[in-house]
Structure formats: structure tokens, C-alpha cells
């Protein structure tokens, strides 16, 4: 038997996940031993501290040389390290929001934060998985934790409905993905992404006696199933049906975490899998698939969000739309090769993108993920600040009327929400604007002009429903007998942090873009 | 009580004699099979001999021994009615009851309650019996010796997955009990089945953890073969052996010395798996009868015989892992050197007899435990499994592991094991202070009667 040699260099990328897991265990145990303590705010702060530590390690890892670690089961590259950073930012902010939210409902328990941190650990590990089984296990770690978090508030039918839908559909999607991975394993005999890519080409070219390609169907079916599994996780149309109900039913801080962290992790894993395997098959194929998904997701997500008066639901649809923009970036990654001719809705001939252009696309995707994480958590945070436990069963807890007159009642909150809405809509000077600029510019450079135009039009339509919230806040009088929102310092701290981040990165994107300006974003062997 | 010397002396000669004859037959037939059929055919002889003859005969004898032994402990006479033809004047210590029991069970009506699920009802006793019967296959009952030029292993099968077979097959038995409980459509049976399956899976964890220490010490999961746990225990700890004249003596690396905690864990857990008192809440003759309440005839007989087969198998496994298999604690080399190359089968047969005598002794120990301890309450059973055995098992694995890494010659482990044994003996000999005894009896459960009939959690009514 050969004993693998591990050095400390192998463990750096998993240290953030280790910190998160350790903190989760501490929280879990502290809950049972200190359960009756008067205040549980320390749990939220401990979670934030763990996220800060993990994020700091991830930031350090950003500058390290990209390499395969742990016998190739994982990779350490700026792509995954940045995802870890994004996840830590998102989880820390969501934990901060959760403190007030849960105290208000007398539901603050260590297990909540523990589950959150377990989910976060799963997300960070998902980003660096370079092997299908590792990837699947980490996907399940994050999924199972979020299923449980969705059902955290057991009052009323909404949380259980959301959790059950999420669980059943999520399990189904996970099974699809696992089945697809099994088919790919059957065709290549390996589950390591890098090895698989090398063997896929040979497997595709294999001919049988009658001159056919016996493994072709196997491989394409595998790709289809893996893609469908990922499309579910990122909530791409037509795999988006669960999103509104789950987002609405889940506790709002969890919704924030789902819209930011889960989605970001799933995107990073998707890019890693398809960038490793896609070029081995015809690159046209993933390009077309992702272009169609992006088109549908952008258009349908924005259209469905238009009529929503329920702000939480509107944000759920908006998160679908944002997944569409990100998918546009993913499609752009595949517009490579001189002979690439087919472009969905493209008016310029594809000339293929060079390595540096590809890094532009990575930069766009990652910057967009960070921007969306900060903004979406801020937007959900405003809802956290406004919603009242008593209204949850009535169904109007998140109605636009809630926001009416907020500009005069709580000018600070209203200002923050305005910033978030502008950022989601892609209006300068916010991080959402810079993100869209980077992403669409990269897509246009890659030749996806038509698709980019559709995206811009769709996001212009999106500005309508985002600004409607702003209109309600500043131009409608507060309804009679509106409850005075309770102030909690943790929630307000999160709002200030997200709002400041949204504006700051929008005005000065320099440090982040400098961090992302690397040609070796994604590690290839 | 009058000591019946004729019975005692008779048993002491007849039982080893029969065992010796059986083992010797096994070696010789095995040698012949290898010579005339194909190499490895002796395993098939062993399948018949060990499983069908030795295990089944001992298990059948246990059905009588259990009644006779309990009668002696309770100052009764025990079964003495059945007589053999021409020997009507002697009860023969009740031995004819073995035959009459089988005949009675076979000729009773096997009926199925009208509400039961027919297929599952019929399937359950088979699923309870078959895995238990197959378990003994990997237990080596004698050393490997050369007979007629062929190496004869006294084991039915020696697959490389060894103990994994044991765990895998043993865990199947839970299907029999839970299916019997459910398919009978009887509330008592359901309760028994649920209790049985819950108890069995609870103790399976401790069962598995108990053996990890031995796997670490010997780096194998095999029982038989030259690198198996059974043969490795015939060696002495390095440097701790000498010769007294021709006889070799020393400290053997028996599992019991290396892993006393592992032994206790495994023994307790396996005892719970047999569902015998004090772990007999799933059956509890005096309260819910058990998951087999609706069974009759030989279908019930299968559940019963499975229990006794389990007793024999458990003894065999314990001996193979913790008590040196067929080997004596010392003098094995000397014994082997007594016989010439053509007479090695005699050496094997002597050690085989030693093995089966150890098995009989452990069976006796199990009977004694079964008739000594009162029944645990169900919550006590779960507490023992999860709160005591599981933590001890984990601690044992890691402490033993550290000792083995520190001193790969296993001496440190043996010293630690010796200390553990001394501590256990001291604890056993220390009288319980009167105060804590009263606490244990009353506790916070309120008064509990002699048999520990306490909370019954599956049925909401009737408690507190």
C-alpha cells in the first residue's frame, strides 16, 4: 500500500472550511451546555468571527500559486479562494442579520448558526472540489444544511412547504447530477475532473465495428444530467420553479444566504466542471446550452418579477434574473476557438477569446458574484428589519405597502434600501453597475453581442420593479397604524456594512478588480 | 446437594472424547477430500462437519442444558419425563428431551393468524435463522496441519474479508425479528419487534467498535489462516517467552490480555444481539412474550434454535478473537513437536478439542449469566449501549491505537490490558456501598419491581 504524502501546502485551501466547521461544532455544543443563557447574541458574533477568520485565510490563499492539492481531489486557485471569500462575507452578514430576526421570534439557537456555518463550509469546499464524489458530498453538505435551515421556523405552513419543496426537488436534482457523473465515470473510468477531461476525448473518438461512436450518447447524456443538476442549484430557467416558494418560506436571513452563498458556490462548481470537461467535447455544445439557459433565465426571471407586489418574492425572481446574467458570463467562457461560428443571437462573428479575455470573463463573473452577494444580503436585510412575526401568517408581511413612507419614518433604512435597489438594477454608482459593466463587456468582447443586448434590455426592465420599491418608500404615505419597526444593532450594523460596501465597491472597484486581474484564475493541469 | 460422581466423571470423559473424535474425523476426511477431489475440498467437509454437526448439535444440546441448568440454579429437578425405549428406568439427565422436543415442534400445527401478512410471516423465521447459522463459517476451530500431504485448515471458509462477513451477515438477523413483529399484526409482537430491532442496531455499533482494537493490533480482519487473528494469538509477546525443560512458556498475545475492554464491549454487545436475559425485553416471557408470539411449530422452533446457535457462534467468535482460538496459553510448540510429520492430525485434533471445550465453557458462562441477572429496563439497555459502551469503545480504539504506535511489539498494550484486568477484578471484588445501592434501586424512576419492569415507551398509556 502506498501512503500518500501530505504537506501543509495541501491543507491551506481547506483551512477556511475547517475554521467554519470548528466554529459550528463549538456553537452546537455551546447551545446544549449554555442553553439557558440570557442572551444568545454571542452565537451570532462567534459566527461572524469565524467567517472573518476564514475569509482572512481565503484572502491569503488568493495570492498563493494555483495547484492541485490533496492528491488532486481539490484544487487551490484564486477562483476557489475568492469564492471562499464571498461565501464568508455572505455568511457573516447573514449571521449578523439572523441575530435580530431570530431574537424577535424567540427562535435563536446555536444550531441555527451551526447549520449556517456547516452550509458555508460545504460551499467553500464545493468551490475547490476537483473530483465528482468530493463535489457531490460537498454539495450535499451545503444542501442538507440549507434544507434544515429553510424549515427552521416551524410555525405556519410556509416554512414546511418551502423546505419540503426544496428538499424533494433538491434531492431529485442531486440524484440527476450523481447519475450524470456516474455515466461520465462509466465512459472514462475516473472521477477526477482533470483525468476525465483527458480521457473524454479518447472515449468520444472510440469507434465500434460498425463505425459508430458507442460512448458518445453516454457522454452527452452525462453532460446533460450534470448540467441539469447544476441548473437546479443556480435556479436557471426552466429549473427555477422552486425558487420563489423556498425563498419566501425560508427565514429571511437564510434566504439571503441562499441567494448569495449557495448560488455563488454552485456557479463556481459549475464553471469548474464545465471548463474542465467542456473543451474536451465540442466546445460549441456547452456554449449553446449555456447561451440558451442564459437567455431564458434573464428574460423569464425579469418578466416574472415584474408583477410581484411581495418584495421577498420579487427578490427571489430577481435572483433568478441575476443567475441569468451570470450564465451569460459562463456562456462567454466557451466562445473560444477560431472556428466557432454559431452564436445565439449574435450579430458579430465569433472570433474566439484569448486567454486574457477569458480572464476578463472570470473577473466579471467573480466581481458580479461579490457585488450580488453584498447587495442581495443588504436587500434581504432591509426586509428582516421591516418584517413582523405577527404578519407572517397573513401573507402580507412582505407587501410593498410595508415600504410605504419608509423614507420619512426611517430615512436611514430607506436610503440603504435605495442603494440596494439601484445596485440590483445596475444603476451607477453602485457595485451592481460595475459588475454588469465588467460582465457585459467581457461577453461582448467574446462576441456575444446579441445575447448581451438582450441582457441589458432585460435588466433595464428590471429597473422598473426595483425602482417601484423606491417609489413606495419615498412617494407613498405610510399606511394608517403602521407598526414601528424595531431597531436592533446587529441588523443595522449589517445594513450599514452592506450599503457601504455596495457604494464603496461601486465607486472604487479598483482593489477588487486588481485582485481578480489574473490569467491563472482557474487551475488547469 | 449430592454430588453424582458418575455423571460428573462420565461427562468429563464422554464430552471431550466425542469432541476429539469429531475433530479427528474432520481432519482425516478433509485430508482425504483434498487428496481425492481437489485442493481446498476440505473446506466443504468442514462446512458439513462444523456447521451442521458441531454447531447444531451443541445448540440442540443447549436447549436441554438451559433447562437443566436453570433447574439446578432454582433448586428444581428439571426435565426428566422423556425416556428412551428399553431404558425406561433412567431419565438419563433429561437427554431424551432433545429428541422429543424436535419431534414435538415438527408435528405441531404451523398456523398463521388471519390478519397476518402471509409472505412476510413465513419469511421472518427463515431470515432469523439463516444468517445466524451461516455465521460460524469463518471461525477457525483448529490449527492448520498437514494431513496426507495437504494443508488442512479447520475452518469452513477463510475469505479475505473475514470479520466483515461476520458483521455483514450478523446484521441481517435484525430483519427476521422486525419482520416477525410487524407481519404478525399483533400489538405485542409489534412491540417486541420494534424493541428487538432498536436494541440490535444500538448494540451493533458497540459490536463493531469492540473489535477495532484487535484489528489494529493484528493488522487483519481475517480469523483463519496463518495471518489470521486466531493463529497470531499462538505467538508469545516478543521477548517474553522461555523454555521450562521441553515446554515453551511465556505471555501469549491473546486478545483478552491485549484488549480486555474490547472483549467486554464485544461480549456485552453480542450478548445483547442474542436477545437473552438480561437483554431480553424484546422477548420478555413474563410481559410481552415477544415478536414471535404468533408463531407455532417449527417456525417458532427456528427462532428458538437461532438463539442457541447464536450462543454457540458467539462463544466460537470470542474464543477465536480473544481467547487464543484453539491454542493453549503455553506449550503449543512442545505439543506440536511430540507428533511426527504423519501424525500432525493428532496434534490438530487435540487443539481442536481444546477449542470446543473452550466453546462449551463459554456457553456455560452465557447460561449462567442468563439465569443470574434480572432483566434490564428498556431505557437501561439503551443507556448502556449509547452512553456507556459507545464512548468506552471509541476511547478504547484510540488509546489502544496510541499504545500500538508507541510500541509496535504490543507489549505496552499487554501491560495496559493487564492493568485494566486488575482494575476490573478490584472493582468486582469491592463491595458496593450500601448508600449507592439504595440509590440505584430507587433512582428517580420511582419504585421498580424486582424484574425491573419500568417505563414502557412504545405504548403511551399505563406509565406514570
Amino acid at each position: 500500500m502506498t501512503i500518500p504524502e501530505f504537506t501543509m501546502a495541501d491543507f491551506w485551501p481547506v483551512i477556511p472550511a475547517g475554521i467554519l466547521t470548528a466554529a459550528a461544532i463549538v456553537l452546537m455544543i455551546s447551545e446544549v451546555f449554555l442553553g439557558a443563557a440570557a442572551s444568545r447574541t454571542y452565537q451570532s458574533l462567534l459566527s461572524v468571527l469565524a467567517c472573518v477568520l476564514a475569509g482572512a485565510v481565503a484572502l491569503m490563499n488568493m495570492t498563493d500559486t494555483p495547484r492541485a492539492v490533496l492528491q488532486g481531489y481539490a484544487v487551490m486557485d484564486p477562483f476557489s479562494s475568492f469564492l471562499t471569500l464571498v461565501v464568508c462575507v455572505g455568511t457573516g452578514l447573514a449571521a449578523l442579520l439572523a441575530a435580530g430576526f431570530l431574537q424577535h421570534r424567540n427562535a435563536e439557537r446555536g444550531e441555527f448558526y451551526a447549520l449556517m456555518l456547516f452550509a458555508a463550509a460545504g460551499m467553500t469546499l464545493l468551490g475547490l472540489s476537483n473530483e465528482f464524489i468530493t463535489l457531490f458530498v460537498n454539495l450535499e453538505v451545503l444542501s442538507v444544511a440549507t434544507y434544515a435551515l429553510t424549515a427552521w421556523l416551524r410555525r405556519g405552513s410556509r416554512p414546511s412547504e418551502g423546505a419540503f419543496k426544496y428538499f424533494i426537488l433538491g434531492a431529485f436534482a442531486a440524484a440527476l447530477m450523481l447519475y450524470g457523473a456516474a455515466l461520465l465515470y462509466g465512459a472514462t473510468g475516473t472521477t477526477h475532473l482533470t483525468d476525465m477531461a483527458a480521457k473524454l476525448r479518447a472515449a468520444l473518438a472510440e469507434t465500434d465495428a460498425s463505425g459508430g461512436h458507442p460512448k458518445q450518447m453516454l457522454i452527452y447524456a452525462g453532460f446533460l444530467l450534470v448540467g441539469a443538476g447544476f441548473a437546479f442549484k443556480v435556479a436557471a430557467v426552466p429549473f427555477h420553479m422552486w425558487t420563489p416558494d423556498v425563498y419566501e418560506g425560508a427565514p429571511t436571513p437564510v434566504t439571503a444566504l441562499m441567494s448569495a452563498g449557495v448560488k455563488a458556490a454552485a456557479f463556481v462548481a459549475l464553471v469548474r466542471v464545465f471548463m474542465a470537461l467542456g473543451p474536451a467535447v465540442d466546445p460549441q455544445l456547452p456554449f449553446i446550452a449555456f447561451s440558451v439557459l442564459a437567455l431564458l433565465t434573464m428574460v423569464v426571471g425579469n418578466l416574472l418579477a415584474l408583477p410581484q407586489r411581495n418584495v421577498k418574492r420579487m427578490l427571489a425572481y430577481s435572483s433568478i434574473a441575476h443567475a441569468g446574467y451570470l450564465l451569460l458570463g459562463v456562456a462567454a467562457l466557451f466562445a473560444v476557438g477560431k472556428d466557432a461560428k454559431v452564436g445565439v443571437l449574435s450579430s458579430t462573428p465569433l472570433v474566439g477569446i484569448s486567454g486574457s479575455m477569458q480572464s476578463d470573463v472570470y473577473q466579471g463573473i467573480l466581481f458580479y458574484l461579490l457585488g450580488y452577494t453584498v447587495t442581495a444580503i443588504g436587500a434581504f436585510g432591509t426586509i428582516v428589519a421591516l418584517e413582523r412575526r405577527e404578519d407572517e401568517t397573513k401573507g402580507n408581511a412582505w407587501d410593498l405597502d410595508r415600504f410605504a413612507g419608509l423614507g420619512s419614518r426611517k430615512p436611514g433604512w430607506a436610503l440603504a434600501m435605495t442603494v440596494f435597489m439601484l445596485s440590483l438594477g445596475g444603476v451607477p454608482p453602485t457595485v451592481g453597475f460595475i459588475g454588469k459593466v465588467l460582465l457585459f463587456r467581457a461577453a461582448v468582447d467574446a462576441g456575444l453581442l446579441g445575447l448581451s443586448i438582450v441582457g441589458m434590455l432585460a435588466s433595464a426592465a428590471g429597473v422598473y420593479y426595483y425602482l417601484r420599491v423606491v417609489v413606495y418608500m419615498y412617494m407613498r404615505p405610510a399606511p394608517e397604524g403602521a407598526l414601528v419597526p424595531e431597531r436592533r444593532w446587529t441588523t443595522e450594523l449589517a445594513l450599514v456594512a452592506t450599503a457601504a460596501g455596495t457604494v464603496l465597491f461601486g465607486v472604487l472597484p479598483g482593489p477588487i478588480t486588481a485582485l481578480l486581474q489574473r490569467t491563472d484564475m482557474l487551475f488547469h493541469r | 446437594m449430592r454430588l453424582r460422581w458418575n455423571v460428573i466423571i462420565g461427562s468429563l470423559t464422554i464430552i471431550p472424547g466425542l469432541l476429539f473424535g469429531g475433530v479427528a474425523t474432520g481432519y482425516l476426511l478433509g485430508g482425504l477430500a483434498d487428496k481425492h477431489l481437489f485442493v481446498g475440498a476440505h473446506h466443504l467437509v468442514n462446512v458439513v462437519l462444523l456447521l451442521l454437526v458441531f454447531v447444531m448439535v451443541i445448540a440442540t444440546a443447549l436447549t436441554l442444558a438451559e433447562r437443566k441448568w436453570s433447574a439446578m440454579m432454582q433448586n428444581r429437578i428439571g426435565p426428566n419425563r422423556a425416556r428412551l425405549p428399553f431404558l425406561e428406568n433412567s431419565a438419563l439427565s433429561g437427554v431424551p428431551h432433545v429428541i422429543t422436543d424436535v419431534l414435538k415442534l415438527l408435528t405441531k400445527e404451523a398456523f398463521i393468524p388471519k390478519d397476518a401478512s402471509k409472505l412476510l410471516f413465513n419469511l421472518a423465521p427463515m431470515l432469523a435463522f439463516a444468517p445466524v447459522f451461516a455465521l460460524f463459517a469463518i471461525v477457525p476451530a483448529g490449527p492448520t496441519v498437514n494431513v496426507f500431504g495437504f494443508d488442512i485448515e479447520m475452518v469452513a471458509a477463510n475469505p479475505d474479508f473475514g470479520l466483515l462477513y461476520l458483521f455483514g451477515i450478523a446484521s441481517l438477523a435484525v430483519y427476521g425479528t422486525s419482520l416477525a413483529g410487524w407481519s404478525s399484526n399483533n400489538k405485542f409482537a409489534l412491540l417486541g419487534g420494534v424493541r428487538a430491532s432498536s436494541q440490535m442496531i444500538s448494540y451493533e455499533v458497540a459490536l463493531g467498535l469492540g473489535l477495532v482494537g484487535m484489528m489494529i493490533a493484528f493488522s487483519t480482519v481475517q480469523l483463519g489462516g496463518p495471518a489470521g487473528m486466531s493463529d497470531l494469538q499462538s505467538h508469545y509477546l516478543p521477548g517474553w517467552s522461555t523454555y521450562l525443560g521441553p515446554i515453551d512458556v511465556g505471555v501469549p498475545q491473546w486478545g483478552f490480555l491485549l484488549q480486555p475492554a474490547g472483549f467486554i464491549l464485544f461480549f456485552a454487545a453480542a450478548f445483547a444481539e442474542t436477545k437473552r436475559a438480561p437483554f431480553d425485553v424484546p422477548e420478555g416471557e413474563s410481559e410481552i412474550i415477544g415478536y414471535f408470539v404468533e408463531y407455532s411449530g417449527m417456525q417458532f422452533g427456528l427462532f428458538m434454535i437461532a438463539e442457541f446457535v447464536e450462543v454457540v457462534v458467539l462463544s466460537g467468535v470470542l474464543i477465536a478473537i480473544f481467547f487464543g482460538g484453539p491454542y493453549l496459553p503455553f506449550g503449543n510448540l512442545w505439543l506440536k513437536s511430540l507428533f511426527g510429520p504423519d501424525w500432525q492430525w493428532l496434534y490438530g485434533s487435540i487443539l481442536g478439542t481444546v477449542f470446543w471445550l473452550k466453546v462449551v465453557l463459554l456457553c456455560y458462562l452465557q447460561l449462567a449469566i442468563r439465569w443470574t441477572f434480572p432483566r434490564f429496563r428498556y431505557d437501561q439497555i439503551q443507556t448502556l449501549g449509547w452512553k456507556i459502551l459507545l464512548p468506552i469503545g471509541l476511547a478504547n480504539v484510540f488509546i489502544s491505537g496510541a499504545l500500538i504506535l508507541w510500541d509496535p511489539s504490543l507489549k505496552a498494550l499487554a501491560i495496559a490490558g493487564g492493568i485494566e484486568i486488575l482494575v476490573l477484578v478490584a472493582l468486582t471484588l469491592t463491595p458496593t456501598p450500601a448508600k449507592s445501592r439504595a440509590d440505584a434501586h430507587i433512582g428517580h424512576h420511582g419504585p421498580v419491581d424486582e424484574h425491573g419492569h419500568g417505563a414502557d415507551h412504545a405504548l403511551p398509556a399505563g406509565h406514570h
Partner: protein
Amino acid sequence: MFTHMVSPLTPYLPVAVVLGLAGLLAVLIPALTTRLGPRSVNEIKSATFECGSDPIGSARQRFAVKFYVVALLFIVFDVEAVFLYPWAVNFKALGWFGYGTMVAFAFTLVMGLVYIWKKGALTWES
């Protein structure tokens, strides 16, 4: 004769024979009793036996959730034990590094055990 019959599966042949024999016995013994025994069915005899009183309701009813919890815990800790076996067999080769990794793994699960213990999942008295 089969003197030279050597196949990689030969060591497993006795296992198959044992399993077959066990199955055969398990089927034959109850089959024998249904052939040898008498058969007379009547209403009262085939009713569910509940100590003589008429059964109330079906036995197909819900039972305490504790049993399900035990099943869940079993899965967790038995899988842990299963992970321990291959580690144990290669223990000496893996050395202190392998020991350390397994300690970390077991520690996580022990923390889980502490949690469920303090949470009361192992407490049966109500």
C-alpha cells in the same frame, strides 16, 4: 478429477456453499413442519392473540419516535465504525498521521454524540 482447479473465486466457494446451505435449511425446516403437523383452522384460533381478550384495533399503528431516532443514530455511528475497519487494518502503515486524521474524524462525531446526549435524544425516561 479437478485436481488443478484453481480459480480466483475458489476461496469464496465455501462461503457460497455455507450461504446456500443456510438458506436451504431455513426453507426446509418450516416446510417440514407444515407437512407433518395437523391443520385445522377456526375463527377463534386464527384471531390475533392478545392474552384472551378481543383485540382492539389493528396493530398497524404508529410507535414512539424514539425508535426512529435510534435508527438515525445507528446509521451515523455504524458508518463511523465501518470507516474504522480499513483504517485499523492499515493502522501501522499509516502511522501517527493516520492516527491524527482519524482522531479528527472521530472527534467530530463524538461532538455529535455529546450534542445528542445533552439534547436528550438518548434519554428514554419521559
